[in-house]
């Protein structure tokens, strides 16, 4: 037989549990309500708009690859971008053995230039960039709102930032990753992290975007870390320096320019 005091204590405990659970439930409900009220498709559009520069953009890009099997290496690439017209040009400056190789994108066309054979090869945006964990598509204008639909959205934190955590499903077969989970800052809709999945929903890579450079209302990640989820300790870190929004001459985005800068 339980004593009266014990019964009272037990009731108080039960009341406390109910209060705590109610509190948690309230927090959860508010979070859910907040998440439900949020227009996630709009967040993707804002993210795309902020990532896409209204001006021209040029920078020196350094790719540092850590690969336990192939060994570590580094590449330096001169980058030119004009997002409004779907144009970009990447010219490899280091290592010396790849000097002059280039990737030229003009609208839907992407060409790889090999100075050794002096030949342009028509290629695909979804291919790996220089054998790294980055894809050619990673460097163009962002088109998340066009390529994906949001299947779920919740609130969370990442580092010191309040974020929306969105799960995405591709709307077309042209994209590299059919499923993605992204962390987007609430404050200014910047992509901080992305988990990229295969069709079987196997995690293929995790990408981090811990630093951005800003010009007007546009942002560009000036540090990107792509971590291979399939090969332990394999990753690619990309940093952008000498970023400029000065106007790039039209003729830079041509095969003729790629041939002229080459030896």
């Amino acid at each position, binding site marked *: 037989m339980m004593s009266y005091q014990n019964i009272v204590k037990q009731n108080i405990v039960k009341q406390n549990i109910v209060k705590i659970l109610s509190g948690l439930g309230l927090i959860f409900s508010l979070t859910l309500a907040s998440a439900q009220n949020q227009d996630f498709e709009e967040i993707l559009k804002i993210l795309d708009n902020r990532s896409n520069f209204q001006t021209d953009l040029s920078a020196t890009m350094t790719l540092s690859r850590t690969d336990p099997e192939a060994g570590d290496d580094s590449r330096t690439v001169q980058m030119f971008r004009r997002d409004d017209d779907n144009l970009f040009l990447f010219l490899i400056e280091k290592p010396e053995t790849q000097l002059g190789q280039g990737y030229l994108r003009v609208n839907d066309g992407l060409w790889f230039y090999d100075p050794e054979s002096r030949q342009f090869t*028509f290629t695909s945006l979804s291919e790996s960039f220089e054998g790294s964990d980055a894809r050619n598509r990673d460097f163009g204008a962002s088109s998340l709102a066009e390529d994906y639909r949001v299947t779920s959205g919740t609130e969370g934190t990442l580092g010191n930032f309040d974020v929306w955590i969105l799960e995405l499903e591709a709307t077309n077969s042209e994209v590299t990753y059919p499923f993605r989970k992204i962390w987007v800052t609430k404050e200014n809709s910047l992509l901080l992290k992305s988990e990229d999945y295969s069709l079987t929903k196997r995690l293929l890579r995790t990408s981090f975007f811990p630093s951005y450079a800003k010009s007007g209302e546009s942002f560009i990640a000036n540090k990107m870390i792509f971590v291979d989820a399939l090969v332990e300790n394999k990753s690619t870190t990309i940093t952008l320096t000498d970023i400029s929004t000065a106007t790039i001459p039209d003729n830079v985005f041509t095969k003729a320019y790629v041939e*002229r800068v080459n030896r």
Partner: protein
Amino acid sequence: MRIPALLMCLLLSLPALAQNNPDDTIFGDTIVTDIENSDANPAKTLLESDKVVIGGRFSVSAQVNLDPNATKDGDVFSSGLIDLSTRLFLDARPSSDFRAFVKGDLSYKTSTGVNFELREVFADIDLYDTVFLRAGKQTINWGVGFFFSPANLINLERVNPEDPEAELAGPVAVKAQLPIGTDNLTGYLLMSDIESGIDIGLASRYEFLVEGYEVTVGGIYQPDNPWAVMATGSGSIGDVAVFAEAVLQGNSNKVFVIKDPDSPSGVGTETRKDAVFFSGTVGGRYNFTTEDQLFSVSASAQYFFNGLGYDDNSVFTGNRAGIAELIGKGELSINDLRERGKHNAAVSVSANDIGGTDLTPSLFWLGNLSDGSGIVNASLQYRGIDFLTPRLSYRFNYGPEGAENSVNGISHSLSVGFSLSGSF
């Protein structure tokens, strides 16, 4: 009290758990910095240089061969230097509007000494940043084919199926290129040394995109040389990169070997200036990498219908002495004997750095389907040492004697070698 205490502990520990998330350490307190623009124009900087740049690529390779089918005069074992050469270039860019470039191969053979071959010498200028001119001896690639490229009409050298990515020597020409959005219109004046008559040919090419494919159409006209029109297409079907070429040629100066009962050797030659020849090719490339990226396989395959080839190759297989006599008399050149099958095919498969071992096995097959001859080459390279590549390869030539890929009949050979190369 145990349950609320547990819940409280859990609630209190949540921020701590969040702080321990390794992802969080990547992010600082602020993530955004403003771009500080400079006046530098990197696009222009790449076109200018205060100094003349000299560079190139050094390579030396040697090999030991075991040839069990060596002829009476040949050795079963042979070994020695395969190549000792340096490709040199000189690049001068005094302003962004003008550039001069010279490139050549300096090679050395112990028997003949030093040799220099000029590969390219040209200057680049532009007209109002709109039309880009290149004048001089230059490589001009028109084709998209990998092992065979009948549309590669302008270069002086043909694609070598066993070294398909090698640079091809081109002619002396003035090239004018006009980019129009994604399209490109290019015109060429092809020139020989001025002698008598007209030593200038005309060529033009237009490149454009259609539904994710790049299409090129072009033509070449030279008064005393072959004329041709061509079309190429490249793109991808699923994960397979595909390409195709079609060419019509006339006024051909190719010398054909024919059976000639009136000739003591039984063979003679003729040209077919009035005939129009169609050639075409189709092929594809596919790369496959396992999800763990330990195994990566690249495969390429191509079929080539050569309108300038022979249906019946018995003229070669039955008259080896006669063919040699025609070459000796200068009535037939080695170039006339290349790509002589009407139906040809090639396949290569390689696995780069298989299983993270730095070993690259590869298999190559080239077949003249018209005369039944072919080459199979299997090789294994080790790429774990900077600048040095050891190689083991086995080569099998099959087909009747005198055929394109089996001049001496069926043969096997095994070789071990290395190449040392580096850019500077």
